[in-house]
């Protein structure tokens, strides 16, 4: 049932590549704006190489009226550098720009060089190529969008089949996206201000580049034959999932009405509108589950939650977005249009696409390769696919084809035997069983954090609590990492190692960022010791040196017991026994851990020598600033200067020339970072490590706000801001004290928003997070529904959890904190949960009632009720009707019971009906049913008098349905014919009964003629006759006994 997608590089294909530095020449040419004659003159002088002189070409016209013509032969005019241009344009295209281009080019060139695509097929170009002299390069200037270019390129592909030299293609961009044109340097859009002849200028300054051409084969893996064998060609990009065009539309709408798009749910909704409007050739969203992606035969497994996979060949997508920015990575090469490789990226969401378009975000890089496979549905492959959001994060995809002949109003019927509906859902790393502990445990902390809000003033007590909370979150993260490592160690099969590593890497990054945030923002550190805090952070996350140092010390102390080893160490020198000795010491110094470094240095075999004792001394004498000490800042600075000068002096003296490691350390200590920067970079894998190391010895009293400057300085040393990865850039934003950017970066982590949500919440609690800077305060006032950033994130996260089958309860807890919007979402999502059993239903109802969502509870009950009715469980259905207080449904059910009784003479659910209690008051019909059951109980218990009274009440009150009257009267029959001395019905009651009987008869006569079958009528007649007789007898007896009654 699956189709295989193979995109295989076929061959490289010629296309014109225009170099971008032509602007000066173009400017010269643009100045020559004069009479038309001059224009033509200029062309004649400069563009002679592009024109086919009339005497060189022979054409035949098929008829006089038809403008179609055929080229017969083309000869060389005889001058060097002759490269004729064929212009292709469609006069109907691009706002009549096409027509304009056609007419003007006809003026500039030989008219037979200018082909109207509305009349001619591009195959005429092939004809041109075939007749052209072999040494001549033919240029083809195509005006149109990417589609037109692709069409022409496809046609030209046949050239190769026929063994003709391929022409070079240039583009006049008339389309909307014009990605191919952008890449090749032809500009992003055509405007009429450009003189056409400037295109000739462009061509003459162009070089020819190769463009990869890809074939997409759609093959069936199953036995079902596909109606259309498909094979497409692709030059720029294609996407599986959200189509680039859809994305573009979406983005434009977004820009025009940003108000509606503040939340993801709305985005999705809007997306659905666009997604369904656009009939795209295979469109699959949320597809990493449905798709097996192989790049060069290697299966790609770790695709995160993507809505779209885009395969790009050129560095421009959806109107100029450069998707492949991966230049710093080792195993990925920069994107080239002719490298025989396709680049594959994943896009997370619609919002992500919008971010991409304004250059705010990066796509998920999946890989690069020359063959891509996927497995979708065969029918969808043939017809196209459409998708719609169902509940929460589920996307339902189905094969769908829109009728193409709209004008003729003929429905295109395509019926397939086995069309399928796919339900797609995102595979979110956070939902991995390994990480579920994180979700649940942090939700507990989250809920508990709301008790903190009660303390409104930001007093010490509160901030202490916040710090505790922050540490708890971190310990949850740490514990999760440990758990996973433990688990990983236990199952050593290695099958899941990738998964474990992914999770650990994710958690580690989260903890890393969280820790820095805690150090910088939540822990109330005094300004002047910013560096102490940051150093702590670095030490905690890069503990290798310290760990190794401890190992050395431990080995030596163990060696103590067996004295031989110790002697060995001392003889050999510790530096020789441990290869990483110097690296460790340097690492310790870089982290400011001088005490440990000193201990290690003392173990060195030469530790008694002069350089070592000196280093030991400066280590010991380094002044340490403490806010609570009694040294003032200027005083400290003075001490520091003195100390450093001392160190620098010895450095100049050349004491350390024998020991390069010591020299580096002293250099660093003396504050001379610039001269040993390269050395420093060797020891520090990341810019923040280097930054902290350098600041420790250059500016020990650096302030928080100065960190930003230093961070930028060191990023420059490490390859500039362009090379920052997710973690780096978040760290940078934190150093810049730009929390809102940091939070935005956090949102891009593949943790489903866990970090962003919890961190933002904590920061908001601590009052550190300013309201969103994008919205001015006035705007906030105007918009009453304005939600602060943390609430928005909680909403997102809560919604995500609610969409999970098992975590909906946790999600509810999050949405609880989001006021109206959260409530609205709870309402929608809660009623969409599918109950598998009564106990789950009860939990849903309880959750709804707890939150005052009465209508959700009611609707869930109603749904359950109808389900029971369908299963013919009337009793249970009635129970649900009680729960939902749905009187109409209860009436309907009561009718069902009564009608069943009329037919069968027994009730199904006696146990329920006999114990209705006050529930029977929900509707008249049920009250009647309850009372009737009471009558039956009385009758069976032989309490005839009471039974008779009860029956009389039932008849007299007129709440019985008409179809039940006969049954009631028939029930009266044995009571009427009772042989007791006193008749059970008195005069009034008997009169009531007979009145009822008369009415029934008259009604029956009314409809007897047509509706009621004769057999039925005779039964009815028989019964009524009997009843009438009994009534008469009873009346007679009653009157005898009650002579005083006046009738």
């Amino acid at each position, binding site marked *: 049932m699956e189709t295989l997608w193979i995109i295989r590089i076929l061959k490289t294909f010629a296309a014109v590549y225009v170099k971008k530095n032509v602007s000066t020449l173009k400017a010269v040419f643009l100045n020559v704006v004069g009479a038309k004659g001059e224009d033509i003159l200029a062309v004649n002088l400069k563009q002679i190489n592009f024109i086919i002189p009339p005497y060189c070409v022979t054409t035949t016209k098929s008829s006089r009226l038809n403008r179609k013509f055929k080229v017969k032969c083309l000869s060389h005019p005889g001058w060097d550098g002759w490269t004729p241009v064929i212009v292709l344009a469609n006069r109907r295209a691009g706002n009549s720009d096409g027509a304009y281009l056609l007419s003007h080019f006809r003026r500039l060139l030989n008219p037979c060089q200018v082909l109207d695509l509305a009349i001619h097929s591009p195959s005429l170009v092939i004809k041109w190529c075939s007749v052209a002299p072999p040494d001549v390069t033919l240029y083809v200037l195509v005006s149109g969008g990417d589609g037109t270019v692709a069409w022409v390129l496809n046609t030209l592909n046949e050239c190769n089949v026929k063994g003709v030299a391929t022409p070079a293609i240039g583009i006049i961009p008339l389309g909307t996206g014009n990605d191919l044109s952008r890449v090749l340097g032809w500009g992003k859009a055509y405007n009429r201000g450009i003189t056409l002849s400037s295109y000739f200028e462009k061509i003459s300054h162009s070089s020819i580049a190769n463009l990869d051409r890809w074939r997409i084969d759609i093959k069936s893996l199953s036995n079902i034959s596909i109606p259309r064998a498909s094979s497409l060609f692709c030059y720029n990009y294609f996407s599986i999932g959200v189509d680039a065009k859809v994305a573009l539309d979406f983005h434009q709408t977004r820009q025009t009405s940003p108000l509606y798009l503040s939340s993801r749910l709305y985005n999705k909704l809007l997306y659905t509108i666009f997604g369904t409007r656009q009939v795209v050739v295979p469109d699959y969203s949320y597809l990493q589950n449905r798709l097996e992606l192989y790049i060069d035969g290697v299966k790609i497994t770790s695709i995160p939650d993507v809505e779209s996979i885009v395969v790009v060949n050129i560095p421009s997508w959806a109107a100029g977005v450069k998707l492949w920015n991966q230049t710093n990575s080792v195993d990925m090469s920069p994107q080239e249009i002719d490298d025989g490789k396709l680049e594959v990226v994943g896009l997370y969401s619609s919002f992500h696409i919008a971010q991409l378009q304004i250059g705010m975000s990066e796509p998920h890089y999946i890989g690069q390769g020359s063959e891509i496979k996927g497995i979708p549905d065969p029918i969808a492959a043939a017809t196209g696919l459409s998708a719609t959001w169902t509940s929460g994060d589920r996307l339902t995809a189905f094969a769908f084809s829109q009728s193409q002949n709209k004008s003729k109003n003929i429905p295109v019927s395509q019926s397939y035997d086995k069309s399928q509906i796919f339900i797609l859902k995102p595979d979110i790393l956070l939902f991995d069983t390994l990480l579920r502990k994180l979700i649940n445990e942090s939700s507990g902390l989250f809920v508990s954090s709301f008790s903190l809000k009660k303390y409104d003033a930001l007093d010490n007590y509160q901030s202490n609590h916040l710090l505790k909370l922050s540490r708890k979150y971190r310990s949850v993260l740490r514990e999760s990492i440990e758990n996973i490592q433990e688990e990983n160690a236990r199952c050593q099969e290695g099958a899941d190692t990738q998964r474990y590593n992914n999770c650990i890497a994710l958690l580690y990054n989260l903890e890393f960022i969280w820790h820095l945030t805690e150090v910088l923002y939540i822990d109330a550190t005094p300004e002047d010791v910013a560096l102490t805090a940051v150093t702590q952070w670095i030490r905690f996350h890069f503990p290798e040196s310290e760990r190794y140092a401890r190992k050395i010390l431990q080995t030596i102390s163990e060696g103590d017991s067996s004295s031989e080893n110790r002697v060995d160490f001392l003889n050999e020198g510790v530096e020789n026994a441990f290869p990483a000795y110097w690296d460790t010491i340097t690492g310790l110094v870089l982290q400011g851990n001088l005490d440990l470094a000193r201990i290690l240095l003392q173990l060195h075999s030469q530790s008694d020598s002069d350089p070592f004792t000196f280093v030991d001394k400066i280590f010991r004498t380094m002044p340490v600033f403490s806010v609570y000490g009694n040294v003032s800042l200027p005083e400290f600075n003075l001490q520091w200067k003195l100390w450093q000068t001392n160190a620098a002096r010895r450095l100049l003296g050349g004491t350390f020339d024998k020991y390069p490691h010591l020299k580096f350390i002293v250099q660093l200590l003396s504050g001379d970072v610039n001269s040993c920067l390269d050395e420093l970079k060797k020891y520090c894998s990341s810019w923040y490590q280097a930054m902290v190391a350098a600041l420790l010895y250059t500016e020990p009293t650096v302030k928080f706000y100065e960190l930003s400057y230093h961070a930028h300085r060191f990023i420059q040393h490490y390859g500039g801001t362009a090379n920052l990865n997710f973690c780096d850039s978040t760290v940078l934003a934190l150093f810049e004290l730009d929390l809102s950017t940091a939070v935005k970066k956090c949102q891009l982590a593949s943790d489903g928003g866990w970090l962003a949500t919890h961190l933002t919440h904590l920061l908001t609690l601590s009052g550190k997070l300013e309201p969103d800077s994008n919205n001015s305060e006035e705007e906030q006032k105007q918009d009453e529904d304005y939600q602060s950033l943390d609430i928005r994130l909680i909403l997102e996260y809560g919604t995500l959890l609610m969409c999970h089958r*098992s975590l909906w309860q946790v999600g509810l807890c999050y949405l609880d904190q989001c006021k109206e919007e959260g409530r609205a979402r709870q309402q929608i999502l809660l009623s969409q949960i599918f109950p598998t059993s*009564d106990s789950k239903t009860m939990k849903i109802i309880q959750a709804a009632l707890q939150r005052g969502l009465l209508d959700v509870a009611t609707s869930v009950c109603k749904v359950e009720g109808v389900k029971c009715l369908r299963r013919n469980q009337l*009793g249970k259905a009635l129970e649900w009707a009680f729960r939902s207080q749905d009187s109409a449904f209860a009436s309907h059910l009561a009718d069902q019971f009564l009608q069943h009784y009329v037919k069968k003479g027994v009730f199904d659910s006696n*146990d329920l009906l006999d114990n209705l209690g006050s529930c029977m008051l929900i509707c008249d019909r049920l009250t009647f049913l309850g009372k009737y059951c009471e009558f039956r109980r009385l009758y069976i218990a032989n309490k005839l008098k009471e039974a008779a009274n009860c029956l009389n009440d039932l008849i007299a009150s007129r709440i019985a349905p008409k179809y039940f009257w006969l049954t009631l009267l028939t029930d009266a029959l044995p009571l009427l014919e009772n042989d007791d001395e006193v008749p059970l019905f008195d005069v009034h009651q008997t009169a009531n009964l007979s009145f009822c009987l008369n009415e029934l008869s008259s009604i029956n006569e009314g409809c007897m003629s047509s509706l009621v079958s004769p057999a039925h009528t005779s039964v009815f007649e028989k019964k009524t006759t009997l009843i009438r007789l009994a009534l008469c007898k009873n009346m007679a007896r009653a009157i005898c006994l009650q002579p005083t009654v006046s009738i």
Partner: protein
Amino acid sequence: MVNNVYGTFVSQKISKIRWKPSNACDSFLTGSWDDEENKIVLWRYTKTDSEDALVKPRAQCSVFHDGDVTELKFMDSSIFAVSSTTGCIKLYSIFQEDEKSQFKLLNSWKKVHSFSTGDLCPSTDITFFEDYIVSVGEDGRIVLISVKDNEPYRIIDNADSCSIRCVSINKMNEILTGNSRGQMKVWDLRSFSHSPETCFTLSGGQAGFTRVTYHPTQTHIKLAGGEDGTITIWDLRNNKFAVNSLNAHSQTVSELMFHPERPEHLFSCSTNGQLWHWDSSKLSHTTISQFAGESSDLLEDTGCPWMSRNVKNRITVYSLIQNLHLPINSLDILQNSVVCGCDNEAMYLIKDFTVS
């Protein structure tokens, strides 16, 4: 509140948790619900070097389970039965192989409960009755299955017009069922009648029963937990009305259990995350033993604290765990250790609380 609570997160919502009967409280079973793949897991507290091993259980073995686990019951110390929302009942045994515990499927019965439309019908509760498993379901059916046979031994169709929620042994040959309308019915398994021996209703019939349990030594005393969080006490010798009704929890009572050896202690948990220990030992320890088995009048006045008129004064209630924000679905007690399983995907062990 006691501090000796040890939580373990297990990545699945736990619907049932049961100690494996043994002398040492060292292993227990959990069943999960509401997940894509539900599991039954055997956990064990192993003695290793590290300190926390005794409170941190390790998964010994697990098996996938179709549908949600609705009940787990041990027949003896190694054989247990499990019921599912798919209406299927399975019988497993736990055996040791090379120091490792393994599950072995002894028998399984598919579609014990089913709807007329063919939809899956959950089995809501099971109990052991000699060599038989009694299963009740949302289709209102009681099924008696012999452990050895492949076909059900006896089916009582339409035993209830609503869902049967819980089942318990009443006395020899009799079982007690509670339904979602607050009705209790007593069935004699020997008689072939399709109607209950007796049927009694909680007045009003508004809130259904979720659990029913009996006093370990005075089996005629039944306690029923309700949807609305009430615990009702019934004396089956006088079966028209409930003896007492306690407004216990504020939400559905999800499990209710007497300490098997010390019946003066009762444990209950609820869907609003409460786990309570009801201790009646301090006030009634002597009187119980004195009046056990004597005439009912005496008992009603002074004997069993559950039956006394001022029941609230005679029982002390302790909360064993800080209130959780999500439901506690199940609890089990063995000796002086309570385990409970919750919807926040954690299970908690409460050790060494005072059971005098």
